[in-house]
């Protein structure tokens, strides 16, 4: 049995726990303050559509840290359902929506994968947005779907700025395709960047901080390296995603055995500083979902600096000011020594309290 078989097996086992939900409502929908691609501030309107979910996850077991497929629907989702989801979301927030917003359309997979969203549905949604008016439209997709055909289909309808969030995760082939098991060849990523440039579509590069099977120190280096390369390749922004422990994933298995630890916030600070200082014009953000909790990125879990640094991330994401990242705490020493010790252990350590 191969690693892929293993991942497929645990995925299938875990998917049995998935529950059926009303197919006419999206997974989530909300409005929040945000930074636009042109670095101005405003509001964004996010809809997470409930689709069939990420095909890669079904076919191959998917990524080692991801369990978004659990949110996807076990039952068929028709084109009609998806339209209803969009419509109901818009209906819900109709009073707050305006033309100066960014509209974000996420699935638990790839918006551009017709396995999840049929072309007809995609066009329906874009048309409705074009009618409503928006400053930006953001979608998410695996790199292989950033094709000329798909860009045509968007550009034919939407006139506003468009940004596609692509899970680059890492530009290290081993890390991306073995450790993360992303299943995206480097070639596909390069294609996506060039296609996007050709069609003047932005690429928001999602970069995973701390995949499994590498050390904290390597994770820092890899995230910095990947970000720098993505910026060089012309991404519209960098969104760092510190790993957090999703249920039913391989990294959860490792974490439960104390053989994986989500990244330290110190590591993320270092990454952000490094990338931002090297690329002062780039838009660099950090996702704070799970940050400061046990299953998310955190420093010594008892330390008070965790919440402070979470705030710093949010602040930095909005302000893009590098000096916001300056903070000191006694526990920083523990992080430095943790990394040193982990290098000696060669294999990643778990939580510092449990070694």
């Amino acid at each position, binding site marked *: 049995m*191969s690693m892929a078989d293993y991942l497929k097996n645990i995925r299938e086992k875990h998917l049995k726990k998935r529950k059926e939900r009303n197919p006419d409502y999206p997974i989530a929908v909300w409005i929040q303050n945000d930074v636009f691609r042109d670095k101005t501030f405003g509001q964004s309107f996010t809809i997470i559509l409930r689709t069939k979910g990420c095909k890669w996850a079904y076919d191959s077991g998917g990524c080692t840290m991801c369990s978004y497929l659990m949110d996807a629907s076990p039952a068929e989702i028709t084109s009609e359902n998806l339209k209803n989801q969009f419509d109901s979301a818009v209906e819900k927030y109709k009073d707050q929506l305006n033309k100066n917003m960014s509209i974000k359309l996420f699935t638990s997979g790839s918006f551009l994968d017709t396995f999840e969203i049929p072309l007809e549905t995609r066009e329906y949604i874009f048309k409705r947005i074009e009618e409503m008016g928006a400053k930006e439209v953001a979608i998410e997709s695996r790199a292989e779907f950033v094709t000329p055909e798909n860009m045509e289909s968007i550009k034919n309808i939407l006139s506003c700025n468009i940004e596609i969030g692509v899970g680059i995760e890492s530009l290290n082939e*081993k890390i991306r395709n073995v450790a993360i098991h992303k299943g995206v060849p480097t070639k596909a990523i390069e294609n996506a960047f060039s296609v996007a440039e050709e069609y003047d579509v932005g690429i928001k590069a999602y970069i995973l901080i701390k995949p499994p*099977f590498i050390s904290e120190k390597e994770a820092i280096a890899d995230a910095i390296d990947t970000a720098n390369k993505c910026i060089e390749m012309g991404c519209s922004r960098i969104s760092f995603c510190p790993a957090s422990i999703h249920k039913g994933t391989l990294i959860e298995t490792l974490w439960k055995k104390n053989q994986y630890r989500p990244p330290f916030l110190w590591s993320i600070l270092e990454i952000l500083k490094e990338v931002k200082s090297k690329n002062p014009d780039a838009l660099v953000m950090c996702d704070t979902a799970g940050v400061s909790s046990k299953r998310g990125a955190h420093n010594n879990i008892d330390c008070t600096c965790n919440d402070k640094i979470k705030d710093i991330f949010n602040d930095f994401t909005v302000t893009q000011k590098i000096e916001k990242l300056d903070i000191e705490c006694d526990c920083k*020493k523990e992080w430095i020594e943790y990394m040193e010790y982990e290098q*000696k252990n060669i294999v990643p350590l778990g939580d*510092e309290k449990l070694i």
Partner: protein
Amino acid sequence: MLEPILYDIGRICKEKHESNSFSTTPKIIEFDINVPPLKTLKIPFDAPREVAEELVKLNKSEYVRKSEVSYQIINAGKYADLIDIEENMDVYVISDLRQIIKRREMIEIIPKVREMISPNSGIYVPGAMPLEIPLLVYMGADYFDYSSASYYAAQGYKFSKNRLIKSEEDFESLKTFNESIIDQVLEEVKFCIESGSLRNLVEETTISNPYLRSNYRRFKPELTNIPISKSNKIIVTIDETKIPEVQKYIERAKNYEPYTNVIILLPCSSKKPYSYSKSHQFFINAINSVRMPVEELILTSPYGVVPRALERLVDYDIPVTGEWSSDEIDFINKYLKNYIEIAKSKFEEVKIIAHLPEHYLEILDIDEDYIISSDGNPTSDNSLKNLKNILKELDQTADSKSKRAQRLHNYQELAKFQLGKNFLPEDVMIKGRHVKFFIKEGKNTVQLASINDNGLFVLTSQGGELLGKTNWVEVDFNVKKGSLFAPGFKDADEAVSVNDEVVIVKDNEVLGVGRALMSGKEMKKATHGVLVNIRHVK
């Protein structure tokens, strides 16, 4: 490149430097392992097997490094069978000690790597804590580092030999202190190997840690890595029947054949050899009051039963509280029964006399009838008189065996014990206080062997010839007296233990005798250094 100089399950090696100076392992390693960043994916201990297999393949080329110091990093999660040893590296680096140390698979990894690699290769275990070092050395590790010192200093912990102690001291002073504890433990490890007491140090450091203690108990050390008899007293306070010294003794002593069917069971004495003690002087005098030879058998923990012929091979200190544990009782009776079985298969009938104090009689659990000759304290006048009377009575009916022949028999049994085979012919002459063995060859008197201070045979080449290809080391050239180096070595008997008397053979011809500096198994893997000190050649 390491050259082993001493074994006590674990080992001390000379580490050769470019200069003429050398230092000895176990020690802190002096170069940094370079794992190329972002080129390997590390295998967590509990990684699913499928993952581990895939990553092992992926890492292979990166984990074997042929720099100035060649090394291989061992990382296969808990799957020892996935470890693929690259031969003759200078150092093998064990990764992920922090997981390994707590897990039963430990004994499938570290000692097995040691078994697979050359004695000239080192094992480096990064990140070990002081309490882990002795067990790791016991399992075959040679190199360590200070990394745990800093890590735990940053966490606010002070090392002791056995535990972490929460401290308010600052990082730098904790780090320095913790490093000094690692140094101390390494120094003590060496001292203990030199004095043959590494097991005791391992007991001390594992006893308060259930994980370490479990792995210590699970570990079955290679018995050829301790000599047949240590020059210092061994100290036994726990695990009496399970320690390697006892296992090694039992493995050989269980084949001991008594000379006569009159067996007298005696208590042990704290003075060793037993016969040097006051109490045994009394017993021996009583026994010598009759003409008939008698088999003297000492009951003891931890060795079970010790025939007089083998008494010089056991030298130990145990706590004296007069209490036996059930395990000790079972052990003694098991090997006493085995001894009686052998006696019964050799003789039609056995006569057993228990000249033992009360607390020995209480634990005696054999099927045969026996006569109790002691009356309370076995050294009392009454007890000794009883014993004499009983012996006198038996003497009347005894076969005509001689004490002189018994003496030869005892040395023959010693030879079987030590060398696996008796080499003393019936017409051997035994002479002197520092016993020596001779035979007549025509007009000449030729010495075969002598007995050394540890009570063991030291052979002459004539003795070796009589022994033949037993406990042998085979060479491919005509050796001279002195050191046998690895290049001249061809093969060896896997039964050879470190320090053993060995017979040097070439093309099935005995060339001489010598002393093994390592076990036969180790010799077979050695690429450098001295394997045998050849004492006599023809």
